[in-house]
């Protein structure tokens, strides 16, 4: 997702990471109780996990996150007017880049004189589950996070 942000920045495409709540709290990154802690975890997202996009924090009660459906790792795309043009209940870089390639052409098409009218599309995209990498990330949170995930999803 960082690479997509870099690739499309010159096309006037913005990209941010919005910090929500701890999906898999563990001993190293426990559930949030203060905004100070939220900022600290968000800085680790930048410094430890290497997120290079601007990171913004939601309110401690997740007001923004909850209004958008509060999935743990979703991606939305907004037009300059605030129109919602893409929403995905999971973040997949292939899906996001496919969408942004399409949207990035819209301003030029309008400038070229095309009269564009919106319509709705429904599509089922596919993501790589990357189980090994996922379990490594759970271990980084602490053994509690691993144990709780295995208990919640024994076949996972």
């Amino acid at each position, binding site marked *: 997702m960082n690479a*997509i942000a870099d690739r499309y920045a010159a*096309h*006037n*495409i*913005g*990209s941010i*990471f*919005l910090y*929500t*709540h*701890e*999906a*898999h*709290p*563990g001993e190293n*990154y*426990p*559930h949030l*109780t203060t*905004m100070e802690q939220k*900022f600290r*975890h968000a800085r680790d*997202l930048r410094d*430890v*996990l290497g997120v290079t*996009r*601007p990171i*913004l*924090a939601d*309110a401690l*009660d*997740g007001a*923004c996150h*909850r*209004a*958008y*459906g*509060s999935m*743990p*790792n*979703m991606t*939305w*795309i*907004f*037009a*300059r007017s*605030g*129109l*919602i*043009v*893409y*929403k995905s*209940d999971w*973040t997949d870089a292939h899906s*996001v880049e496919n969408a942004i390639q399409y*949207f990035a052409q*819209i301003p030029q098409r309008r400038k070229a004189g095309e009269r564009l009218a919106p319509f709705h599309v429904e599509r089922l995209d596919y993501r790589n589950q990357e189980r090994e990498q996922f379990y490594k990330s759970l271990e980084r949170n602490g053994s509690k*996070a691993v144990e*709780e995930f295995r208990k*919640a999803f024994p076949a996972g």
Partner: protein
Amino acid sequence: MNDLLTRYNYDSFMPEKFEPWMNFESSPKTGTSAPDFPLWNLDQSSTRLSEIWSQYDYTIVEFGSFT
């Protein structure tokens, strides 16, 4: 902490704690106006989601956390 803060910032990944928050089906639809909310930069200065999306032709927003 009040009840909402405690429930939203659940302390354990247990279905009865995380499933109530997974409401994508009832989230705003494409083609509608996005709800606007205050947000905070890492230097703790405040901004709004609308201040960000109004700067670009399109804005990608990934929601998530360290964990």
